[in-house]
């Protein structure tokens, strides 16, 4: 319909390209030395998907072990390594790279820029993150060190002191863990600075802050947010290594150090980290829901304010992960209040998404299916979050399978679902080909069913009193039936993810040609070709509203009239 007008006049440089390189080595060389934001975005994405498959395989091993009581599928030592690696990998090698995958690929296109503000820093940040991943996984072969104990960290992803002290964790596994987090942390800080600088200084003409797409807004807030969030973690890791190698006693309780100081450092990182990971999911939902409901986002200023509010409040809630450590009653009450305050801006976001859909003409293509499921699951995750914020009830629920269910509702039910939505949505832009809708729908329904079989059931396992981190359980507890159901759901999800991986590869070669604007969307990335040329836009675009392509397609009713 509107395709004849796109790409917008002058968007493409029509001079013929130079002789392209064809050998495998040339192509590889091209990717390794690249500073192009789109290639780096795709590299972040490939890294995230690779580690998603690895950590997913670890989760499946965990679920096989727990499917029946007194199982001997893997040893306790192996089990403890697997859940530590699963958690660490999913957070630092899947979740964090995904933040920068989206920010890198989409933000410069959405603001009409040709690249990020600091392209070399961008490449450096990616390779640091990647190096951190190599450090972490090298521990499987390099971990035993001189002592012949352990390979791969086995201290949980919280790594509570003093379990990480030399006395309780000999060998080098914990060192690799700390080192990996320091290195990826620096990569993250580089990425955060880059996003902030890009958004502040690279916007095209006419794009004021309040005309930026919500996606870009969320990424901007996230860029600033990670600078605050990552630093305490990095500081704590440095202190841990000082304890382990230079005779420090920060966390060494046997020498008068404090175990609770580590908890504070870890959670003042750990809680906001959840929002660092979930903001990209919000960002994707904010684009997909608009386009597939065929309506402008409802309450744009409120959405921006809500996200800034969430970021701000979430910096003051960390000790709700520590209700069981024996804080004073007043301390517990304070963190109950601050935690429940997060619910208010979060509620605003959910209501605004619903209001965006209200009165629209909702097209349930695969991206929208995932986003709709996200809305439902994020609602549930928020409500179980309220339950956990109630300190006395948290004394029961903390570290039980109820908590596992709750945060997987956030990390999978909200984040992974929207990551899939985002991939189905922007795959045509990045590759020029559509992903298969048939496979996409199969993927969605299988994953949706598997997700609910696993994680709905897991709440009840928590009510039955099963704690996390246990490699096996006695039959007399009565936990085996529900655990078997949870494990079956895990297998269904694994099948769905493999189907997705197949869809990615199949569509890359055989997918329908997408064209520049397959979803009839409204933001600037759809104004250039698919895939975009290396320079994105040959001439700088000029925008007059939040939806420049809507203005172009509907000259009779442009957004800027209401701006």
């Amino acid at each position: 319909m509107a395709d004849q007008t796109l790409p917008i006049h002058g968007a493409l440089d029509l001079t013929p390209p130079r002789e392209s390189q064809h050998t495998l080595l040339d192509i590889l060389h091209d990717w390794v030395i690249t500073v192009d934001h789109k290639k780096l975005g795709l590299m972040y994405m490939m890294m995230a998907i690779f580690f998603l498959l690895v950590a997913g395989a670890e989760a499946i091993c965990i679920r096989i072990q727990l499917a029946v009581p007194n199982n001997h599928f893997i040893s306790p030592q192996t089990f403890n390594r697997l859940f530590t690696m699963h958690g660490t990998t999913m957070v630092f090698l899947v979740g964090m790279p995904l933040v920068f995958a989206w920010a890198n690929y989409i933000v410069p296109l959405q603001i009409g820029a040709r690249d990020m503000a600091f392209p070399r820093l961008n490449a450096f940040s990616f390779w640091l993150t990647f190096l951190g991943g190599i450090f972490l996984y090298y521990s499987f072969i390099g971990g035993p060190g001189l002592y012949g104990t352990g390979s791969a960290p086995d201290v949980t992803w919280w790594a509570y002191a003093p379990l990480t002290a030399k006395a309780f964790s000999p060998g080098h596994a914990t060192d690799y863990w700390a080192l990996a987090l320091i290195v990826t942390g620096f990569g993250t800080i580089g990425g955060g600075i880059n996003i902030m600088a890009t958004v502040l200084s690279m916007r095209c003409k006419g794009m004021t802050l309040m005309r930026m797409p919500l996606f870009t807004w969320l990424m901007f807030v996230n860029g600033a947010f990670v600078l605050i969030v990552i630093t305490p973690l990095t500081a704590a890791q440095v202190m841990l290594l000082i304890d382990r190698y230079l005779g420090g006693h920060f966390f060494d309780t046997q020498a008068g150090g404090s175990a609770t100081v580590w908890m504070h450092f870890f959670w003042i990182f750990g809680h906001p980290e959840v929002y660092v990971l979930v903001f990209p999911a919000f960002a994707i939902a904010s684009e997909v829901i608009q386009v597939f409901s065929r309506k402008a986002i409802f309450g744009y200023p409120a959405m921006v304010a809500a996200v800034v509010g969430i970021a701000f409040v979430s910096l003051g809630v960390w000790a709700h992960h520590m209700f069981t450590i024996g804080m004073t009653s007043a301390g517990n009450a304070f963190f109950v209040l601050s935690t429940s305050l997060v619910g208010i801006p979060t509620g605003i976001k959910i209501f605004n998404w619903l209001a965006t859909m209200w009165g629209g003409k909702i097209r349930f293509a695969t991206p929208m299916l995932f986003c709709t499921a996200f809305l439902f699951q994020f609602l549930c995750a928020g409500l179980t979050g309220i339950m956990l914020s109630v300190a006395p009830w948290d004394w029961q629920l903390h570290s039980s399978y109820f908590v596992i269910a709750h945060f997987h509702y956030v990390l999978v039910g909200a984040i992974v679902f929207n990551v899939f939505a985002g991939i189905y949505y922007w795959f045509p832009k990045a590759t020029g080909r559509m992903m298969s809708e048939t496979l996409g729908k199969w993927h969605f329904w299988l994953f949706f069913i598997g997700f609910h079989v696993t994680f709905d059931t897991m709440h009840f396992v928590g009510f039955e009193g099963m704690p996390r981190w246990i490699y096996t359980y006695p039959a007399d507890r009565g936990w085996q039936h529900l655990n078997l159901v949870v494990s079956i759901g895990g297998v269904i999800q694994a099948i769905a993810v493999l189907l997705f991986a197949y869809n990615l590869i199949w569509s890359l070669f055989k997918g329908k040609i997408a064209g520049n604007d397959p979803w009839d969307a409204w933001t600037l990335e759809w104004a250039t070709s698919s895939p975009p040329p290396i320079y994105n836009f040959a001439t700088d675009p000029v925008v007059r509203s939040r939806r420049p392509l809507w203005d172009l397609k509907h000259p009779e009713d442009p957004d800027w009239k209401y701006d």
Partner: protein
Amino acid sequence: MLPKWLRVERIVRLAFAFALALSSHALAEGPQTNTHILSPVSTPATQIYQLSLFIIEITGAIFVVVAGLLTFVIIRFRERSGDDQSEPAQVYGSNQVELAWTVIPVLIVVVLFLTTARVIFAIQDAPMPQAALEVTSVGHQFWWEYRYPKQGLVGQDFVAVNELHVPLSSADHPTPTYIKLLSADVVHSFWVPQLMGKIDLIPNHPNDMWIDPLQPGIYLGQCAQFCGVQHANMLLRVYVDSPERFAAWAANQARPAVQDPSVAAGRHVFETQACMNCHVVRGTVATGRFGPDLTHLASRDTLASGMIPNTRDNLRAWIKNPDAFKPGCLMPAMQLTDEQIDQVTNYLETLK
């Protein structure tokens, strides 16, 4: 008032009847107990349970409203076949509506906070009655030590291991047990769901909690903070006895170890091999503090922190190779001969 079948407590009980029905309890002794957080038998656990019902009511109501809206939107506003392809009316927002869905959550937060704060203070700041029993629990990788000081029903101080005995409390004569929580190594967490939520045992950071079990029985739980390889088998058993039975148990625990000349050979092995470096047998030369106190080992129902029944076969196999039961536990296989193992087993079996 809602009709009875609609009351949340009833709905919650029905919903979990499914889960409860699936649970089987192999423990024959004592009344039926479980590890569920929704069947409290002591005051703090009951207060938490009642608070949780209120929270379920509120979150349930929010769920019904918002999920209902979402369902309505999905059905009502989906694109239909034969649509004219025109774009729907564009609505950019409404300050009144934004205000409404900001103010209502604020009110909910206020209610939630006040209700929660009341329960926090009621449990955490409850004054300790005179009749309370005070026990110190020390977490070790991967077992529990309980120190009983001389007071009330306890005639003389002693140390018990892995099986915590406490007197039954009642509404008219409350005899709660206050547990001081310490750790000898890493962070552990004390969690017996029917009695109280969990509180951590942190080195250099003493904590406390209290329980007042209102029904006799054996209540189960386990360590709830990852503490190393055998975290999964750091099981908790709390025996709630009538005051008379508790006093009798305490009197027996306070006695030094039984000295039975017929097992002198086993005692000799115990005291000349490395056993005594880690274990206490009160009244003998064995005074090691690293492992569990064995003075009254034979009076316990279980071995290896609640993992296996305390039978002769299990005890013998445990001494021969603890790793066979509990891989990664800190007790080494001492490479005793079969004869020595038999002798030590005979000796330990007399420690009633």
